[in-house]
């Protein structure tokens, strides 16, 4: 009996680690996170709508905030045409800040994003700030008077969102803006409701429950237009601060594959984006539509990395 159970456990472990099959999607994190979701949902829909013949194998490769998977792809799988890797804005920010141990964005090809988690700026229900501009005015008078909590480390995307807004509003020294990185969006909200910070910066999906319960108010959503289903939340753009910051969910592929294969993945991704299954999955997970595939997406990522790098340099995250 003993051995049966040990065998069972080992079997389960091997099941997680994964065996080689046709198409493989690497989620550069443990099961359960955003990257894992991207791989599992896109992989499942690709198979369900007949874009691939065999179920997509999901491999979890956590480490280095995605850097381990990135380096593995670059060094060991550079010409694997059946490999896709989950990516998001965090991948982009870390590449901009050279956080992948010297790896650069041009070592892979970003094939597309199909959906994005809109950035939000949130305050506690009893906060004196009624609009984003009131908050920014207070920061202009004294940049240290408004402290933010967010789910990413300093210099991460949540932090950069605040800095982008402040710069766009004409606040000169963005380095004096206080930001604490905590363990995830819910923790950041807790700190804000508790009054330890005055604002929370995060993604729409992280705050939905707290908005419904009335514990927090959303001052602005950082999208081009208001998000369907959240029509009473104004965008930053309509408050006069033209910043769009969304946490896109997408994929990259190895650099060494042919242009035809690259285009093939781009087309498949487009097919997923157009499917009803994906629309349902997006709605259930608080994602807004955001479809950019192929060379169009690559150009978007390149430009975003340039902007993030410039901002990170300014606040001293990178030299």
């Amino acid at each position, binding site marked *: 009996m*003993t051995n049966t159970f040990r065998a069972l456990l080992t079997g389960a472990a091997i099941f997680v680690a994964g065996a080689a099959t046709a198409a493989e999607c690497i989620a550069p994190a443990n099961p359960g996170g955003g990257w894992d979701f991207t791989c599992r949902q896109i992989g499942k829909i690709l198979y369900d709508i007949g874009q691939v013949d065999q179920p997509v194998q999901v491999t979890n490769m956590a480490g280095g905030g995605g850097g381990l998977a990135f380096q593995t792809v670059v060094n060991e799988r550079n010409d694997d045409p059946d490999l896709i890797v989950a990516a998001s804005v965090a991948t982009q920010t870390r590449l901009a800040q050279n956080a992948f*141990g010297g790896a650069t964005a041009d070592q892979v090809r970003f094939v597309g994003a199909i959906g994005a988690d809109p950035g939000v700026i949130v305050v506690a229900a009893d906060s004196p700030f009624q609009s984003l501009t009131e908050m920014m005015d207070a920061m202009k008078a004294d940049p240290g008077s408004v402290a933010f909590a967010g789910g990413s480390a300093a210099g991460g995307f949540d932090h950069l969102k605040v800095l982008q807004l402040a710069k766009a509003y004409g606040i000169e020294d963005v380095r004096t803006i206080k930001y604490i990185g905590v363990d995830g969006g819910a923790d950041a909200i807790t700190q804000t409701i508790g009054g330890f910070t005055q604002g929370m910066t995060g993604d729409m999906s992280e705050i939905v429950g707290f908005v419904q319960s009335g514990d927090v108010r959303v001052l602005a959503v950082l999208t081009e237009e208001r998000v369907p289903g959240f029509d009473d939340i104004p965008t930053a753009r309509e408050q006069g601060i033209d910043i769009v910051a969304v946490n896109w969910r997408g994929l990259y592929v190895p650099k060494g594959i042919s242009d035809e294969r690259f285009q093939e993945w781009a087309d498949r991704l487009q097919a997923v984006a157009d499917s009803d299954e994906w629309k349902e999955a997006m709605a259930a997970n608080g994602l807004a539509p955001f479809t950019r595939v192929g060379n169009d997406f690559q150009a978007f990522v390149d430009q975003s990395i340039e902007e993030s790098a410039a901002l990170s340099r300014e606040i001293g995250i990178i030299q």
Partner: protein
Amino acid sequence: MDILSNLALGFSVALSPWTLMLAILGCFIGTIVGALPGLGPSNGVALLIPITFSMGLDATAALVLLTSVYYGAMYGGRISSILLNIPGDEPAMMTCLDGYPMAKNGRAGDALVISGVASFVGALLATVALMLIAPMLAQAAYLFGPAEYFALYLLAFSTLGGIASKNQAKAALASAIGLGIAMIGLDNQTGLPRFTGGNLHLMDGIDFLVAIVGLFAVSEVFVFIESHGKGSALGVKLGKITVPWRDIWETKWTMLRSSILGFIAGILPGAGASLGSFLTYMMEKSIAGEKGKFGTGVVKGVAAPEAGNNSAAGGALVPMLTLGVPGSGTTAVLLAVLMTLNITPGPTLFADRPEVVWGLIASLLIANVVLLLMNVPMVKIFVKILMVPPALLLPGVMMVSFVGIYSLTGSYFDLLLMIAFGVMGWLFRKLDIPTVPVILGILLGNAMEDNLRRAMILSDGDAMFLFSSPISIGLWVAAILGFVAPIFLRRIIKKPTVPDHAKPVD
């Protein structure tokens, strides 16, 4: 009676034959996973996630299965702590301190029964508290900012000296080493890597599970090989299991106090079950004083951490369900499962999805009863797994350690680290340096540092901010008392007893 009707709803969900079977299966798997050194609740839950999906379980059924595994592992962890001196999972670390000496004194059966009952009491009280006051308790998280968390972690470290009864300096050295190891990895406040030497494997820091398996399980194997079994923990004999009613009755206040303290530690996000079992053990140790003989195999030393860690495990579900903030590694995995099942934990969960929440609570109550039966009358089944001859057990411990650690990140690097920690544990044992403070340093070091630095960012570096709320002042006072009191108490208590010890033995 809202709660009763809600509970009725919960039981109507949980008592279907299908979910009941899942609960029993989950308890069984959980206890085994917990008992096997190297596999803990977070492995157990993580390993079952893909199985849950492939079985196509709905949200409630998946939750029942996974939380049964979670509770089961919390129960099972004590078995190898007591029999092998290797904690089956990290919160069971404190159970080694008295559980293993009890086993060596020939009281392994008593230790298993008492700790099983303590686990039941802790988990039951926590589940009842979860049921009655979870939404209110969630508010507690709003009271804890960076300054308060820093003081809380400081409290844990201030009592560490007492863990090594002989040499406090060695305990301090061990916790300094643990804190040092914790500094490796990404610095959360700047996003820059520290002490990684450019190695991507070290970017996420060193997982405390790697350290705990290395320091306890692998080093135990080394000691066994070196001594050919003499002086090693492996191979403790277990006689007939009887219920020591008297001991259980005598530990009733210990169990109750520990359940309450453990639950409080559990509901604070980030503190978790390990802190719960540590604080309860230290609390009982200081209540009992020198006469309590903690560390030599006393029943209270087994009952306290087990009641504490099981109630903390229940407590950790409170912030997870009501705020979406995981209170421990395992609840982080559970949270991820909920999200994948399209359930968003948060303040509206209790109102939006009552069938999920109350189904979960009902199944926790059922799991608890099942676990008590499995872990007291039927504990021998699990003991058998650990009671195989050394020729099988040694490779078995190694194999499970390797599988468990590999399943964490799927990286060979962690395996090398684990062996390095094994060597370190073996050396520490030769030098009589306690290993528990190393684990605590790794476990809490980052959180303690992060909160100090967050506090400094918010206050522009004003140190007085650390004492700015009643909660933080209270925790500081407790920490200072915890640090100073043993020194004075020892003097006061020791003086009259000195002549006793000093008597010539001739």
